């Protein structure tokens, strides 16, 4: 019963956001779609960072791989020969539907994460953070310059879109996968290593192996999220999946509460929502009174609000607890 509630909370919230998104104007609908995609990406970060307690700045590598792979595979073959003549033949000639491209993105992203994890999962603490960041640096550098795997410094354009309902389904799949993982024996073992590495090892848990499992799943979900991202945006450049997105998604996770799936979902949706609201407020919104923010102040305020939340609630808005009904009752 508890498990049903814990999973239903985030899922209903996501469905509600998607449903709300269909009732507003097309321009605002984009913001709801973007919130759903951010949630999928933040959940993928949570699978590794939240369960292992090891920080990774590298998950955007897998988002990059997923975004470009899924995007390229869904563009028609003739068009690719024309705009991206330098691609590897297999990428140039293959053309699949969006769902298949997302599955392929998840598989390739997972394989890449497995490869990276085999080398890096022996590390923990800051060395792990910096090493994963180095992986991101390499991924960015390669995609930025190598025309065999993508459009290099150009944008990847005319990627077919996805409806808000399809994006919602994608987001729900990520959440369900993350929840299934954290309830599995793998997830529980990894969470034990997060709480006390020495005690976990003494009880026979292979820390390296459990981290590797989570890193691989997280990479697959990140690539899947990257696929959603490219179909949501319709076009993408390497810079859109680099430093800023890395830190913004990480901030969403920590603001929500790094230790719970509920925290990841709430953080992503809330920060996206506040960001959109502040953006609208730059062109005047009515909330009982007229509110107009100076042009360009959106990101300043967003940064200040995130810092404020962390200062007031260092363990995140949800306190890293999962969703429960008593939580709702206590709030009332």
């Amino acid at each position, binding site marked *: 019963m508890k498990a049903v509630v814990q999973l239903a909370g985030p899922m209903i919230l996501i469905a509600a956001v998607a449903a709300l998104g269909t009732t507003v104007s097309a321009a605002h609908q984009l913001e709801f779609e973007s919130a759903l995609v951010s949630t999928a990406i933040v959940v993928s970060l949570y699978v590794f960072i939240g369960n292992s307690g090891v920080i990774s700045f590298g998950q955007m590598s897998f988002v990059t791989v997923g975004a470009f792979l899924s995007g390229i595979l869904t563009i028609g073959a003739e068009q690719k020969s024309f705009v991206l003549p330098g691609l590897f033949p297999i990428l140039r000639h293959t053309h699949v539907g969006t769902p298949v491209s997302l599955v392929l993105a998840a598989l390739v992203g997972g394989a890449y994460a497995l490869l990276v994890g085999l080398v890096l999962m022996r590390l923990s603490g800051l060395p792990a953070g910096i090493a994963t960041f180095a992986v991101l640096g390499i991924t960015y*550098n390669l995609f930025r*310059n190598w025309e065999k795997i993508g459009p290099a410094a150009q944008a990847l354009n005319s990627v077919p879109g996805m409806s808000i309902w399809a994006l919602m389904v994608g987001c729900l799949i990520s959440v369900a996968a993350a929840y299934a993982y954290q309830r599995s024996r793998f997830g529980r073992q990894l969470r034990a290593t997060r709480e006390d590495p020495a005690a976990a090892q003494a009880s026979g848990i292979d820390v390296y192996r459990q981290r590797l499992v989570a890193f691989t799943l997280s990479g697959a979900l990140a690539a899947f999220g990257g696929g959603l991202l490219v179909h949501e945006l319709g076009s993408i450049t390497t810079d859109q999946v680099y430093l800023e997105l890395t830190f913004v998604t990480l901030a969403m996770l920590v603001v929500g509460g790094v230790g719970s799936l509920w925290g990841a979902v709430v953080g992503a949706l809330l920060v996206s929502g506040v960001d959109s609201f502040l953006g609208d407020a730059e062109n005047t919104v009515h909330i009982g009174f007229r509110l107009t923010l100076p042009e360009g102040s959106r990101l300043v305020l*967003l940064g200040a609000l995130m810092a404020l939340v962390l200062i007031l609630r260092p363990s995140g808005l949800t306190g890293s607890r999962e969703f429960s009904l008593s939580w709702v009752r206590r709030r009332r």
Partner: protein
Amino acid sequence: MTLLQQLIDAVALGALYGLVALGIGLVFGIMRLINLAYGELITAGGYTLAILSGQSAVVAILACVAVVVALSLVMERVAFRPLRGASPATMLVATFAISFMLQNVYLLKFGSRGRTVGTLGGLNGAIKVGSLNIRWISIVALVVGAGLLAATTLLLNRTTIGLQMRAAAADFRTARILGVRANRVISFSFLVSGVLAAAVAVLLTVQDPLVTPDYGVSITLFALIGVVVGGLDRLSSAALGGFAIGFANSFVGARLPTSSSVYLPSVIYGLVIVVLVLRPAGLFAPRRRAVERV
């Protein structure tokens, strides 16, 4: 001879990165806080110099130091003091939020196109020694870098506040029990790291005079990588790590054939991964587990 030339340039860039690493390492040692907003201190210094470009160099540099130190102290008081003792991830993301906010403040205030710094532009001139062209700024960067490193070392080893800082870095709670005043020590470390950031701003704007809102980001990221690669647990290892990454960046960049020079970051990041996997405690960390962190 070109090899020697490349070595000199690499050493000069290394000195600059070493200074940034020193500033980051100093605060980390005491607070266990990786300050991602350190780059924005450098940027603030850059803008101060740009605004005062018409003034005499002494006035501009003094103002730069004053502004950067003030910002560093305000940052500590407003944001990092309430977060003391929070989890590393929370502190890290908080410093990112500050960095993000400040970058956007700069964007709002100064626009995205950047301001040019004219102060000390003359240092880009070179002196000829045989077939070598040594730019004045290389010499100045080296001298200032070595001087500040020596001064910081003296400060830590020969003064009461330095002793207290080292004690706080070794064991913050015990140091407090023994009468070290936490706020004073931490504020002081932010002050010193602010002075270092100001020095970096002055040196960096000579070589790269166009100050944009994200001016300090890349050098901070690289220096941060250098700090971890060198070894977080000792200030000298951290500074050496910063030096090494600056040196490698300049030297490998100069040695790489032009056709593959766009892949320079991949080479550097690849080296970083190799070092971290082989020696997670740091390239320059002592074999035994280090106790002293500053």
